[in-house]
């Protein structure tokens, strides 16, 4: 298994100019590891980063959209797996950082942890491509292919539980405004 920050750094190295919607654990590090106008923190309504990401992928078919989701977060919105498979946006990658706990809330284990497979659920929901990786070296080897493959892609990354830390929240509203402007025609990345 790998640390969450290691997984995020690996993804950041292959991100290019993709839109990245991040939530829960990824909020602790992502915007510092890979800042930019195409980041969106989804913290207001837990569970819906994947929904926002899907909406962005449909609206912006020429841009890659990556969702950095949490396993507990996804469990709150499992139907999105069916919706993603049904809409099948080619530019969409749903990354789920699976540490098996509600790390921010209090480190409690997810219900049924060890009995279910999110990759299995994604496949059963109709995902055309679903992977699960628990080794950092393998993740780095696979990311170039995953980032260039036609989606939608589900990628579960097994990560070690981290310590409970105060949530480092950027201004999600400001990020939303910045992203909205950055996605308008004619926007020039500075």
């Amino acid at each position: 298994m790998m640390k969450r920050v290691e997984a995020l750094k690996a993804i950041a190295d292959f991100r290019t100019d993709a839109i990245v919607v991040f939530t829960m654990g990824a909020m602790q590090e992502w915007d510092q590891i890979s800042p930019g106008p195409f980041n969106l923190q989804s913290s207001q309504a837990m569970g819906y980063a994947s929904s926002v990401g899907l909406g962005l992928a449909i609206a912006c078919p020429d841009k890659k959209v990556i969702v950095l989701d949490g396993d507990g977060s996804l469990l709150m919105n499992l139907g999105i797996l069916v919706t993603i498979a049904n809409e099948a946006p080619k530019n969409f990658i749903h990354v789920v950082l699976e540490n098996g706990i509600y790390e921010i809330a209090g480190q409690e284990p997810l219900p049924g942890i060890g009995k279910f497979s999110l990759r299995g659920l994604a496949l059963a929901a109709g995902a055309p491509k679903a992977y699960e990786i628990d080794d950092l070296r393998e993740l780095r080897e696979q990311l170039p292919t995953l980032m260039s493959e036609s989606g939608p892609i589900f990628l579960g990354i097994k990560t070690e539980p981290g310590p409970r830390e105060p949530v480092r929240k950027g201004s999600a509203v400001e990020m939303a405004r910045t992203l909205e402007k950055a996605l308008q025609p004619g926007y020039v990345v500075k």
Partner: protein
Amino acid sequence: MDRGKAICDELKKAGINHLVWLTCSATHFMHKSMLSDPDFKVIPVCREAEGVGICVGLHLGGKRTALIVENAGIFDSGNGLSWVAAWEIPMVMIVGYIRRPPVPAGLPPSRLGLNRDYTESFLSFFGINSYPLDSDEDVKNVALAGAETQRTRQPVALLVTDETYVPNM
């Protein structure tokens, strides 16, 4: 008037090109028109709050959206609605009123009454204005809602009553 088609035409005039939808008996009359119209991208969802999130993403990506769901699903989406209000996301909501039958005789009355009795108050709690969409005359409210949501950057709801359908509960 084919009210379903008329509503769809008004939605398009308001620049709305994406419909996020969870099927509902009250809005059933417009489903055929919206599904057969090539100018719409219709996105069926599994849960209403999921649809709220998709509308947020669509808006940030430059699309104008309508969320077409049942009022009970709106109650389920409170967390999502607070998010939309905080982020100032324009969104037209076409909300079906589902009328639940009265409590059978001999049982204590429901303190909350019927779902439609508290739909408007629930919406207004989140700062969402609502207008009726129950008649041919009401179709003009689609344009009103479309303009208001863009001006205020708050969702605006159009409420559709289905008087004929009573769920067997």
